């Protein structure tokens, strides 16, 4: 394969796994801003090591290795901050999350359908939290509810979506099997 083709392929591969990597990292670094930073550092690290990229190798595990290294580096930088997980938990979560995050693509398709099953109010709530990036307190103030009630409602929506996605993926698996 020509060098330029290999680079094209690498760029395409990196592009394809962005969503999965973000999900993988967010599980380990459960803060959306921090996860975004770690993803950017992972991308940069992948690119710096482009000379070592072998198109015949499976890409996802290779990319996850880079993400894990960057998560560990982040954890070391923020050791004094008590809001980071310790190495023992990170190891466990990383090992278990890697296969799940690889399914980000199918999960997104399932999410698309599951969102359609939500009520208008539930979709509005998600829009306020994620699209408009409002805090729980802001949503509560605007909707004249308590912060606890808003947080509960969001929690239930996320759980419902998780169950819906899990069910759809299982159905797809069964149909294929």
């Amino acid at each position, binding site marked *: 394969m020509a060098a330029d083709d290999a680079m094209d392929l690498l760029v395409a591969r990196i592009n394809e796994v962005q969503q999965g990597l*973000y999900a993988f990292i967010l599980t380990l670094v459960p803060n959306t801003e921090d996860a975004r930073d770690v993803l950017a550092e992972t991308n940069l690290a992948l690119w710096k090591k482009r000379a070592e990229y072998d198109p015949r190798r499976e890409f996802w595990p290779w990319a996850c290795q880079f993400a894990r290294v960057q998560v560990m580096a982040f954890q070391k930088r923020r050791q004094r901050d008590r809001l980071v997980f310790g190495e023992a938990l990170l190891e466990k979560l990383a090992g278990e999350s890697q296969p799940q995050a690889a399914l980000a693509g199918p999960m997104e398709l399932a999410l698309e359908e599951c969102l359609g099953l939500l009520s208008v109010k539930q979709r509005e709530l998600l829009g306020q939290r994620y699209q408009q990036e409002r805090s729980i307190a802001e949503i509560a103030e605007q909707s004249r509810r308590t912060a606890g009630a808003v947080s509960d409602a969001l929690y239930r929506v996320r759980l419902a979506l998780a169950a819906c996605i899990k069910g759809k993926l299982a159905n797809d698996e069964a149909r294929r099997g």
Partner: protein
Amino acid sequence: MADRRDTSDFPALLQAISDGVCTAKQHARLEAILLDDADARETYRQYMAVHALLTWRMSPGGQGQAVAAATISADYAEPADSRLRRAWEACYDVISNYAVLGMLISGLFITTILLSLALWTVPDWRPSETEGRPQVVAQITRTRQASWDKNSDGNFKNVEMFAGERLLLRSGLAEVTFEDGAIVTLNGPVEFVIDTAGSGSLRRGKLVARVAPAAAGFSVQTPLATIVDLGTEFGVTVENDQSASTTVFAGSVLVQQHAADGTTVREHVVKAGKSVLLEPGRIVAAKPETSRIRYARNLQTSVDNEGNLVLLPTASATVDERGQAAWNGALKTGRDKMGPACASFLHFDLAASPLAADEVESATLKLWLTAAQQFGATHIQVAAEPWKRPAGQPRLDLPTTPGRYTAVATSRRDGDVHIPPATGQYHEVDVTAAVQSWLRDPAGNFGLVLQGMKSPTTGEYFTATYREYAAVSGSNPPLLVIEAHDPE
């Protein structure tokens, strides 16, 4: 202390961590539960996966600093606020221009009334019948990023200039068209006086005069000499010490040097490609200068602080793969999820470049990126044929046929790949070879094609949106920056 086996507080901890309000104590408790309980970890992973998907899918910044939400879903193809912002920016340019214009008109109106009152109450100030009415001898026809001194007699486009009025341009470019047909491009900072319908005085600064044969005889007065056009295009510079120089781009000029009493003491004809220095008591032939680049010969061209020639596009377009123009105020490449693939075209007119191909040290295309996917590249290619098809087909063609476009540079070379593609800044691509070829063969200048890289795995195009070239006054347009070899 919470019982390690009691995980009834687990839902509240999940809520806190995903809502971004987790305390240190809650974090430690969550970590303890997750370390011990495999079921809790599975719930946590699934819950956080949904949180990640929602953040990625819906959040404007969820895909990283430079990601177009367009790649996620057509619903969020372009957040409304972004559309509004772009629309507002476009409107703002117009509104601000009109607002400034309005203020100036209002100011002029009030000034006129006050002046009329003054003239009426003080009859001696009125021009006498014998002096006649002042004649309009020139007009400011175009400007580009012009900043005028408050004492300038003219300070916006379309204003008519009377004989004797003075223009003080602090920066930017202004084009003045004389009644006799000469067109002068003032390169700020400059002080220039409109003398007659066929002459002006350059007190300091730079200008370029383009004089059609019918307007031959146009003259530019400098403190030490008068430059009389013989049907040509020439540049004049007056330094602060009143020394001057002139460079002839085409045709020839007659330089007349004055004595202190104004009489002509010396004359010298300067031909195309030649320059002379005008010093007290002498006219010195100068070497053909690379300093020719110092002049902006039209409003599409300027000179930056490093002495590089900076060109704006003379034409641009965005078309989709169906061959239909997809102009939406931006130069776009690639495809949104639901839309057709786009490519964009840019053309720079090098006719005004004073440089020959072998004088070009480097040429850099600068594109201001407004949105892009997280990874990918935009190929910058040389168009090998006119954009428009002959035989009455007005539609533009996409570069879908390999080989029709000769790649000169692609952004996937080292240093040009955007990882991630940073928006809100210029990205540079070396197009030296293309510019040199256009200077050698101007007829072969069909401009550049911007095309998103096609993924070999998904077949999708890299999507990017660059700042449009909508007007010369627009901010951050595409630029072609040409650097000349250092003078020996």
